[in-house]
């Protein structure tokens, strides 16, 4: 069965957590407007990653991680054209340019960097395809995901904090009733000024975000700062008085005779079975 969705709704941290806990093998493809990233996993560990934008060849990675100078990189690119990463790796090790450990370390750094960059994506369609292995000619590594998840968690910590402070975007905001306060004298950011015209209990934060083109995180950041500054306050729908339908629970289930409760439950079970 497919695992697919949008990072906006299901974060990379959650995805990596799922992959490591279920010890999954396969490819995670994440795409947004003009970028795509492929991350390969083996038994819940990071094995390989590449992006559309980067030179993902071994030479390119060794250059990026500064094991190869620009001149060496260009030399390899022009002289060993057509050689696979594995062949090039063996060549470099046998020629004593690098140790196996150097190459593995360099690849790990690059792959982790690719994943870390993904954490900055707040949007992007993803799909996980089981049992698709990295290309045969590529050198794979085994990186535990725990540290990556921790780093990702730190990055979204702010969002989660704000979600605790503002749990839903379906609430409205209104100006705090402070006689003499002059909003015009406030020193606000451009994002905050963008929101100010829409401050009205009738407008939900979701609606304001839609109109101003802000993400959930951005609208929360702005509203939180305005609330902290005492400019606005959040307005929740009032709880209606009374209970529309008063249903009394069979008291014996929670307080009274347990045998009566069991008997009642068996009657219910029999009835459901007979439906």
């Amino acid at each position: 069965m497919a695992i697919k969705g949008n990072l906006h709704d299901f974060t990379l941290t959650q995805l990596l957590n799922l992959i490591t806990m279920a010890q999954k093998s396969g490819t995670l493809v994440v795409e947004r407007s003009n970028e795509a990233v492929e991350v390969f996993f083996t038994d819940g560990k990071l094995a390989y990653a590449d992006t559309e934008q980067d030179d993902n060849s071994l030479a390119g990675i060794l250059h990026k991680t500064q094991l190869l100078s620009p001149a060496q990189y260009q030399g390899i690119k022009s002289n060993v054209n057509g050689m696979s990463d594995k062949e090039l790796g063996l060549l470099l090790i046998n020629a004593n340019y690098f140790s196996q450990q150097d190459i593995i370390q360099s690849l790990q750094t690059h792959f982790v960097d690719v994943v870390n960059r993904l954490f900055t994506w707040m949007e992007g369609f993803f799909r996980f395809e089981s049992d698709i292995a990295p290309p045969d000619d590529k050198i794979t590594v085994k990186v535990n995901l725990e540290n990556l998840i921790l780093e990702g968690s730190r990055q979204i910590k702010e969002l989660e904090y704000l979600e605790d402070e503002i749990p839903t975007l379906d609430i409205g905001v209104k100006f705090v009733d402070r006689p003499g306060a002059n909003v015009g004298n406030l020193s606000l950011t451009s994002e905050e000024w963008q929101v100010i015209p829409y401050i009205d209990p009738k407008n939900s934060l979701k609606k304001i975000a839609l109109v101003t083109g802000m993400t959930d995180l951005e609208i929360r950041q702005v509203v939180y700062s305005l609330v902290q500054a005492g400019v606005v306050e959040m307005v929740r729908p009032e709880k209606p008085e009374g209970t529309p339908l008063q249903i009394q629970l069979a008291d014996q289930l929670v307080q009274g005779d347990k045998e009566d409760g069991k008997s009642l439950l068996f009657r219910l079970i029999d009835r459901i079975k007979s439906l």
Partner: protein
Amino acid sequence: MQTLKMVVTGPFNAGKSEFIQSVSEIDVVSTERKISSEIERIKETTTVAMDFGRITVDNDMVLYLFGTPGQKRFDFMWEILSEGMLGFVVIIDSSRPETFREARKILETFRAYAPTPYVVAANKQDCEDAWEISDMRISLRLSPEIKLLECVATDKDSVKNVLLELLYSILAELENIKLEAVQ
């Protein structure tokens, strides 16, 4: 007449109304309205007040099933609906992982309102994009003892199975209370 109540909750468009409709002996009393929010315009109508289904057990006992409103802005009604419930079912759309986080929050909210037994129904398991139960359990951070059941809300037998599992959980809870009282 003795009346019992179970609550069927879950995120927007999870299949709560269908779930109740599958087993209710009356036409479900449902206040469905055109959806105003662009963001929530996944389906044309949604439950703005509550779904209300009935199963007559015998001459002196009736079970009512209440479906909570799907849209977040009606969450102030949850506490009212949870009063006196026997247990609750959290319905989750297995094919929409973006709702898992919300489902988790709803589950925790209901647990806070009333520490009654509950089960989680992974609905739309017949969909091509449905997540596997084991993956959903991890994503929802459900411990192994919590029942996470495959479900197709439009299939009566599937819904019956979920309700029976909830009743078995309530029964087990009752046994535990009994044991504690003896000890």
